[in-house]
């Protein structure tokens, strides 16, 4: 009950007409950058950051937070309509979401994505409000050694539950890990695999890679057989999800919320990882895992919920400790620092309006986004009436502009084009590019945390088993490997018996 009074005060702040207006502006702008491929929450935040210099800190943080979680709503749109991810956290949505659109069910996919986003986003604010301090303490226990264990665990989970043939998945993962090594070595500052070019010193641009592998490759595949791509004429009847759709999505939304909230604590890449995990879990728990990839509504609902559920938990380290765990919250931190507000243990007592105003605004913002996004479904679905030959190149052009505008670097467009070709070849060979992208995201951090841990211990590998968190994560890794080995051994036995 003791949280109720300050929360009510927070609502009083968040409902002030100016704060409310900035909240709506933030949500609206977030949706726009989320919808536009190539532009993600980060680009959206940095574009509007200069505007906040003139605002008071509460209005500034409320608007910027709105952009951050608003972008998670918009990302699904182009993923579903044309299979070009609106931002990195909507890669997994593209797989089944677009298949649904092909079957004329873009409406239900978009509606379920919006509802899942709303539920995930709202519940994660509840989590943020109730459990922030203890969770922040727990987070500090995860040092470089434990972080390595966590990354290894995430990679193994995703390999084991990935649907494709094990060998192909493994090849994709290894290719991803190799791509992750490009760039300056973060421990010795030596440039690796850059061929003497300064362009690759910071590594391969992940968003460009993802847009190429998923979006450009899709367009190339469609070029082969342009007659196959029919113009989808959605009727009003098909816009609304059926009762069965909601029944199928509900458990996925519940699981997505939990997964997103937990994975929100992973530094750097939480919103992307959470969608991969959610997709994998839905497939593993499904009675018909082989139908994933053909337009399952759970495969849209889960990941889209998960990426929104990360927003609450990834705010926790920022607000409680003053530590930005992901790039988007780093910008929120600068916005507060500009106004002389330093987040940390004293934030709640020194600036209650900022803290509780922000929490209250996140409840309001999620509601605003739901109200904003549901009517847009009708508009977006009607975009499909545009013949593919016009729609796809337009989206492609927008993504090229988006990707260029972030770094003003033409190499990023080149990366997108080349990975589009690679993605085309991979998909012709029935290779799934998703594990590759995941390995790129995870590989970088996995290597750095391992080498950081070993630098701290001066080369002593036992550091990986020191501390409770390291033991938990590595214990889970061992358990998982044993279970998998046992399962495959028993599986082989069963198959042998059948053949005999």
């Amino acid at each position, binding site marked *: 009950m003791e949280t109720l009074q300050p929360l009510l005060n927070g609502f009083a702040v968040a409902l002030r007409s100016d704060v409310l207006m900035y909240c709506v502006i933030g949500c609206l702008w977030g949706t726009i950058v989320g919808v536009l491929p190539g532009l993600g929450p980060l680009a959206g935040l940095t574009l509007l950051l*200069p505007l906040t210099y003139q605002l008071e800190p509460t209005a500034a943080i409320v608007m910027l937070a709105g952009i951050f979680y608003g972008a998670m709503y918009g990302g699904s749109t182009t993923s579903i309509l044309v299979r070009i991810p609106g931002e990195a956290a909507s890669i997994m949505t593209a797989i089944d979401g677009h298949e649904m659109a092909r079957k004329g069910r873009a409406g239900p996919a978009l509606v379920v994505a919006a509802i899942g986003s709303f539920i995930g986003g709202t519940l994660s604010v509840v989590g943020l409000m109730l459990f922030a301090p203890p969770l922040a303490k727990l*987070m500090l226990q995860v040092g470089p050694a434990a972080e390595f264990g966590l990354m290894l665990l995430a990679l193994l989970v995703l390999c084991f539950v990935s649907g494709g043939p094990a060998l192909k998945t493994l090849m994709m993962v290894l290719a991803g890990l190799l791509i992750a090594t490009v760039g300056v070595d973060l421990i010795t500052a030596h*440039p690796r695999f850059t061929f003497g070019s*300064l362009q690759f010193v*910071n590594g391969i641009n992940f968003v460009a890679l993802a847009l190429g592998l998923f979006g450009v490759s899709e367009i190339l595949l469609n070029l082969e057989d342009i007659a196959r791509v029919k113009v989808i004429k959605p009727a009003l009847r098909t816009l609304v999800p059926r009762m069965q759709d909601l029944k199928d999505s509900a458990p996925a939304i519940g699981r997505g919320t939990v997964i997103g909230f937990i994975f929100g604590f992973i530094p750097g890449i939480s919103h992307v990882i959470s969608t991969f995990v959610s997709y994998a879990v839905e497939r593993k728990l499904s009675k018909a895992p082989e139908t994933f990839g053909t337009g399952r509504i759970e495969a849209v609902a889960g990941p889209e919920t998960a990426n929104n559920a990360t927003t609450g938990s990834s705010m926790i380290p920022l607000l409680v400790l*003053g*530590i*930005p765990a992901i790039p988007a919250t780093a910008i929120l931190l600068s916005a507060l620092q*500009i106004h002389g507000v330093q987040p940390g243990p004293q934030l709640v007592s020194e600036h209650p309006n900022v803290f509780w105003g922000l929490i209250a605004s996140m409840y309001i913002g999620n509601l605003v986004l739901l109200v904003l996004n549901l009517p847009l479904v009708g508009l977006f679905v009607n975009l499909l009436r545009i013949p593919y030959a016009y729609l796809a190149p337009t989206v492609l052009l927008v993504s090229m502009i988006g990707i260029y505008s972030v770094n003003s670097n033409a190499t990023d467009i080149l990366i997108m084009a080349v990975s589009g070709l690679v993605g085309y070849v991979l998909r012709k060979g029935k290779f799934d590019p998703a594990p590759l992208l995941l390995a790129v995201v995870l590989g970088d951090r996995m290597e750095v945390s391992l080498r*950081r841990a070993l630098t701290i211990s001066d080369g002593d590998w036992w550091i990986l088993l020191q501390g409770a968190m390291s033991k938990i994560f590595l214990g889970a890794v061992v358990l998982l490997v044993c279970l998998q080995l046992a399962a495959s051994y028993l599986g082989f036995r069963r198959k042998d018996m059948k053949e005999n």
Partner: protein
Amino acid sequence: MTRLKRGAAAALAALCILPAAFAQEKYPSRPIELVIPTAAGGGTDISLRVLAELVEPLLGQKVVVVNKPGGGGTLGMAQVVQARPDGYTIGGLWNAPLTMTPHMLPAPYKVSDYSAVSLVTSSPTVMCVKSAFPAADGKAFIEELRKNPGKYTYGNDGVGGTIQLAAERVFTKLGVKARPIPFAGAGETLKAFLGGHVDIYGGSIPPIMPYVKDKSARCVMVTSAERNSSVPDAAGLADLGAPEEATVLWRGIIAPLKLPADRLAILQKAFASAAQSDKFREFMLKRGEEAKGSSSAEFRNLIDSEYEAMGKVMAAIGLTKK
């Protein structure tokens, strides 16, 4: 047909007049592009964007910020060095791409390839320890490091970055050794420090302040010669007997080498007075930094002396390119 001819004639005339107009044109007569070689939203970007806004009325022109990250800042820096020296493309950056990264990566420019306009901000790196650390002040801290060479670890914002090099420069001079652990920015360093995974926090002042206030952390030294008013108990390098080894994180404005002297003077005057304005001073103070606004010559001296000092430090710790 006649219209076409007239158009062609006009174009031809314009072509003839253009070089003459260029020579006599009042500078600046169109927007100036300020290239910032880092992603938008970081410390350098925010400080310089605010400064750009304050410079606009002084120059009477828009200053358009273009972010060009990559290559540790060398990509954007190269764009400025290679730009036309007409004063419409200038660069705003922190020390690393000028005095540090070129020792490490094959940067396509030398330290003498650009003009220094003005040094606009500076902020020291602070070294802090947990309250249980067996050293109460800066002198005791250095003694503790001297007694235990290589025992303690300090977090910093990346290998070959300002914080590591500022610390190594002092440690080398004083003959002590601590092990650097590179993190991606002050946030990660702070997390590892609070969780007890590294012994010493090395970074900017604002992130650590809440923990200095609640007495769980204690700042023992800064890397500027003088003490800093936000952490008055931390020793300055003058207190430790090495004031000449000061390295701070600074930001400045540079321009292509062959920029005419009169234009350089216009830019210097505008940026220096914007940096010295009350508004900018107050803004930087809130971020725990100091507003400057130096002359071109002062800035040039700083770049040259720091470039040389960094070359030595980086060679000593094995960071220079092979």
